[in-house]
């Protein structure tokens, strides 16, 4: 979530679902909320009943559009142009909330003279190194700071370790020393953030929006008017997004676009405002908070890197700047407490809190690089837990080919998913590319317990932990993840108990002593208590403010500290909404500190008074911050407080610094550090696009991650020769009736019958152009695969006029996979994609790419391979195609 982290300080939704009812306008963009979050969507309907305007901006007319006040169809992959257009409208028409912008954002901060914008460099920012395709972000920093202003600190680094840093701003903005920053309160200085922003977005005119997005200027202006009319002192607008924004090669910058708009309009930290990041499914927020990511430790602490973080001191200096403001300044307490939680008495001051027990990252170990490493026989074994990469990951064939190289594969799932059976019934068996007898992978299928069969928490979309109690025992051999890992740990530790090898010390010394419940199973509440943290005497912590850097506290995830405050499992609270106020603080527990709207100090003006009676939330009563929420600010810090010279950490926050995790206390219109692909969002085309970037000479994100290998053929894009072989835009998505790669839905008849077959959605005009018939079959082709789908011809898909030509879009739900065990099966949309990733977060671009579509079913067997090869050959695709990140421009 670095888009939010590098704007506001934390990578989580800034508001909560119930707060939507107070919005005067709700913009849902890059999300199909009604279909993918139907329960939360009730609050959109509630807002609509109260008179709010609901706008859905999306390539397709979905069930969300059906109940919105207006639907704005745009070309998949063009959202930054749209958002940039709104920013330009807000600035040009002076619709921004001036007092808010001056007080709470970095608009007045001055940038360095050496900073150059995309305006000067035709789509690149200063600091780009074409040989590495990376930025040195030094020139993006504020004027008046030494060096890159980070003094070590987290930030966009020039590391070669897989660009891991962008992700570590999930709970804490990038490090930076703000004390000496020059400012211009008139906002007139040409190097002020405000003026840079104005120049950067000047070319994002309504006409340009029309040309890039295919949205008529009049319709675009209607959105601008609705959003600006519903923002300000008296009114607030909320922006809702989901994976329709994140799964792009420039996805993080989509989110930055919304962040800039919401800061300019003064919608952050206020009721009915904010940015609601909707998560893909249950506990996805939780799986970044306590991460399943290779480059993070719990609470968004970065994983130490080889060479760079050899010593404890080097690591510590790397994660926080000693001079910075805000709560990230206490990072040492969080790391020491984590190490104490893991290694207890073995973590001492003398051994650097057992810091050397942590492995170091020596390269990119993201999921896609790992799949390639499997192909290269660098990976022996693989655990899949609730994950079905044969269907759910981009470039399905690569995933399956990779798994066929493993020595062993453990699949823990509810059903015999395709990732467990690809070796006997996958698409490559049918095509003859793989033969079962040649695959040496030993597959262990371990049945998993469902959520009703185990206790634990889900951390949902709004950062709220909710406890679920085990209702029934898991059947047969089914087991919870917790029980599985506990026992696995026991067994591994038993094996290594007598080892004298130093490398085994981390396992031998690991605290692995959990109480067992009546059934002999590990007690989940004991784990939650460990996460919450304890004092040395065993008392539970009340929150991370109690964490100490001296080893007297232990806690597994600092941002979750407080979930067991007062010895109570706060996440298990279920006081009905009818028995408390609308904020419902006594239902579950939200990190941090059970705050429901983040940065809510900004709901009051700089003097601590509500901006308006209608939008009152938190306010200063002369002694404390009071209101319906827990204030996201030091409780008793007066609005007039000014930090003394030399203060650091939380003590350095002024009374009007609402963004308490940011090094300068302000919301970032311009991100001087924290992102690897630019301080401001600029529109780049998707890696594979039938359209030439109308805004800059630079076609696609110049920092996107590419994999130049024969397994990953990419298509020509824009005006490159051969691009016309793949003339259509396609996008993938989910349906209400199914769950992601189908593991939880395609085995259930009641869900499967509702959407039994893989289908594609096309417009009537597109169907005519290609001879597609409703209810018939179509074959969709890219450089990687040809797949077949039933056809739905619908007016819900409309052709768009983009830059003088008509662009057709194909919609593909990605729930189906090839196998024999599920109730319903089908070709997988994810087989179509190649790998092009956002360098900030290694996320794949699966929301916009280019394809061809033909009527009828696909060929079988070897003929299928020949068909795809024929397309590659016709488009002139080589291993070099599409791998050049900086666009080579012909000099005039």
């Amino acid at each position: 979530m670095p888009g939010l982290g590098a704007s506001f300080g934390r990578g989580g939704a800034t508001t909560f679902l119930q707060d939507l009812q107070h919005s005067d306008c709700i913009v849902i963009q890059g999300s199909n909320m009604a279909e993918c979050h139907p329960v939360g969507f009730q609050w959109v309907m509630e807002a609509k009943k109260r008179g709010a305007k609901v706008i859905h901006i999306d390539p397709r007319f979905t069930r969300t559009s059906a109940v919105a006040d207006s639907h704005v169809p745009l070309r998949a992959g063009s959202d930054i142009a749209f958002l940039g257009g709104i920013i330009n409208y807000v600035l040009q028409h002076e619709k921004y909330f001036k007092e808010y912008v001056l007080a709470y954002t970095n608009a007045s901060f001055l940038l360095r003279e050496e900073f150059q914008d995309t305006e000067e460099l035709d789509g690149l920012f200063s600091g780009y190194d074409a040989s590495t395709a990376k930025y040195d972000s030094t020139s993006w920093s504020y004027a008046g700071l030494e060096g890159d202003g980070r003094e070590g600190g987290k930030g966009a680094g020039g590391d070669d370790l897989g660009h891991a840093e962008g992700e570590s701003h999930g709970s804490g903005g990038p490090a930076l020393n703000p004390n000496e920053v020059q400012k211009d309160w008139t906002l007139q200085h040409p190097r002020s953030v405000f003026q840079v922003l104005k120049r950067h977005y000047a070319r994002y005119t309504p006409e340009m929006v029309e040309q890039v997005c295919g949205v008529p200027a009049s319709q675009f202006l209607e959105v601008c008017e609705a959003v600006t009319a519903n923002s300000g002192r008296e009114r607030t607008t909320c922006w809702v997004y989901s994976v329709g924004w994140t799964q792009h090669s420039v996805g993080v910058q989509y989110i930055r676009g919304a962040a800039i708009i919401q800061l300019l309009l003064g919608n952050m930290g206020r009721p009915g405002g904010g940015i609601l990041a909707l998560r893909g499914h249950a506990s996805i927020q939780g799986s970044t908070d306590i991460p399943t990511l290779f480059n993070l430790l719990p609470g968004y602490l970065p994983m130490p890197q080889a060479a760079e973080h050899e010593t404890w001191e080097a690591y510590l200096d790397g994660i926080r700047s000693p001079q910075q403001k805000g709560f990230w300044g206490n990072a040492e307490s969080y790391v020491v407490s984590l190490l104490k939680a893991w290694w207890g008495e073995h973590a001492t001051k003398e051994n650097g809190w057992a810091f050397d027990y942590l492995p170091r990252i020596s390269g990119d170990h993201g999921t896609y690089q790992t799949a390639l490493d499997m192909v290269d026989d660098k990976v022996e074994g693989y655990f899949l837990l609730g994950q079905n990469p044969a269907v759910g990951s981009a470039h399905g064939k690569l995933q399956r080919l990779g798994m066929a190289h493993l020595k062993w594969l453990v699949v823990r799932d509810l059903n015999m998913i395709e990732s467990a059976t690809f070796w006997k019934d996958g698409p490559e068996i049918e095509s003859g590319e793989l033969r079962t007898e040649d695959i040496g992978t030993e597959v262990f299928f371990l049945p998993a317990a469902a959520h009703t069969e185990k206790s634990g928490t889900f951390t949902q979309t709004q950062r709220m932990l909710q406890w679920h109690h085990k209702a029934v025992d898991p059947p047969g051999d089914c087991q919870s993840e917790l029980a599985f890992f506990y026992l696995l740990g026991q067994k591994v530790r038993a094996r290594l108990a007598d080892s004298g090898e130093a490398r085994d010390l981390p396992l031998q010394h690991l605290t692995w002593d959990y109480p067992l419940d009546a059934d002999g199973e590990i007690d989940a509440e004991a784990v939650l208590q460990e996460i919450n943290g304890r004092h040395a005497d065993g008392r539970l912590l009340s929150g991370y403010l109690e964490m100490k850097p001296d080893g007297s506290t232990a806690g597994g995830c600092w941002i979750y500290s407080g979930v067991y405050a007062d010895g109570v499992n706060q996440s298990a609270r279920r006081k009905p909404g009818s028995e408390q106020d609308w904020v419902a603080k006594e239902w579950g527990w939200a990190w941090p500190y059970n705050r429901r709207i983040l940065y809510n100090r900004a709901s009051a003006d700089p003097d601590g008074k509500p901006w308006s009676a209608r939008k009152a939330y938190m306010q200063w009563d002369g002694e404390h911050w009071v209101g319906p929420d827990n204030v996201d600010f030091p409780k008793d810090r007066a609005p007039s407080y000014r930090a003394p010279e030399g203060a650091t950490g939380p003590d350095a926050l002024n009374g009007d610094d609402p963004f308490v995790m940011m090094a300068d206390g302000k919301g970032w219109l311009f991100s001087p550090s924290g992102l690897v692909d630019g301080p401001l969002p600029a529109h780049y085309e998707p890696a594979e696009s039938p359209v030439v970037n109308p805004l800059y000479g630079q076609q696609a994100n110049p920092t996107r991650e590419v994999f130049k290998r024969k397994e990953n053929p990419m298509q020509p894009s824009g005006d490159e020769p051969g691009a016309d072989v793949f003339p259509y835009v396609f996008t993938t998505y989910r349906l209400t009736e199914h769950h992601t790669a189908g593991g939880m839905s395609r085995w259930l008849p009641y869900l499967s019958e509702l959407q039994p077959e893989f289908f594609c959605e096309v417009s009537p005009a597109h169907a005519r152009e290609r001879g597609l018939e409703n209810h018939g079959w179509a074959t969709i082709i890219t450089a990687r695969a040809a797949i077949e789908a039933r056809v739905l011809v619908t007016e819900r898909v409309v052709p768009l006029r983009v830059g003088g030509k008509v662009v057709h879009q194909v919609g593909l739900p990605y729930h189906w996979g090839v196998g024999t065990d599920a109730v319903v099966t089908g070709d997988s949309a994810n087989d179509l994609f190649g790998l092009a990733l956002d360098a900030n977060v290694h996320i794949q671009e699966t929301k916009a790419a280019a394809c061809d579509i033909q009527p009828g079913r696909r060929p079988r067997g070897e003929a299928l391979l020949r068909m795809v090869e024929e397309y590659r050959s016709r488009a002139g695709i080589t291993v070099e195609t599409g791998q050049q990140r900086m666009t080579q421009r012909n000099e005039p």
Partner: protein
Amino acid sequence: MTSNPARDAGWVDPPPRKGFFTDTSVCIGCKACEVACKEWNAVPDDGMNFLGSSYDNTGQLGASTWRHVKFIEQPASTAVDLGLPRVGLPGQQDTGERTDFRWLMESDVCKHCTHAACLDVCPTGSLFRTEFGTVVVQEDICNGCGYCVPACPFGVIDRRIGEKGVTKNVGIAQKCTLCYDRLHDGLTPACAQACPTESIQFGDLDELRARAQERVDTMHDQGIPQARLYGADESDGVGGLGAFFLLLDEPEVYGLPPDPVVTTKDLPEMWKKAGLAALALLAGAVAVFGSGS
């Protein structure tokens, strides 16, 4: 005061009549109602059939589908209404009121009619009127004669098709029970319980009708003149519906009959006429053969 078919059916001091108000204006087509219904009532799946009909792969209500979410894709109307007589399907012409493409969704269900023909024609007493005013099939009494199937003016009830021994209740007439078992325990029917947007509302029919009227009035004030209630009027041909709807267009657009009439309405008249005819025949016979003897 709503008519009380339970009292008419002989229940002494029945509880208030229960029903559904389905507000299609807030339906998001999630089909949670279909799934919750099947889960609770152990209704089997209805086949894995891709219909190519928008997002509807259920097709229609039947013995194995007691809730059915309809999806209606309405093209944008562009032409100006000239006030000329219309041809084509209702809702498919230009009315001058609507310019946007619309995707209408409606969760359909048994209407639990005030005057229920299925009940009238059932020879075994399997179909009965409950104390809540709803109409329920008793699967252990139904003999599968099928009289109820053509009797329903909405095409709701049907006999279950399937392989005996594999699928339960094959050949037996099946439909929504308004979760009769749940009502006895004071629970909300499964579909209404699962509905995330309160499109399906359950309660006392009196109160639901008042609430629905209020909602329509609000929508008219909000500039949505197409909003209308369907089946809330006791003077209609079925005496009003126990499960009624707020629609955003004419009933035909949703595949609902505009003026449903209980199919047994003319039965008394028919029997009377048949009786008269029989009497006349008898009289004739007596006249012919009697006088000649």
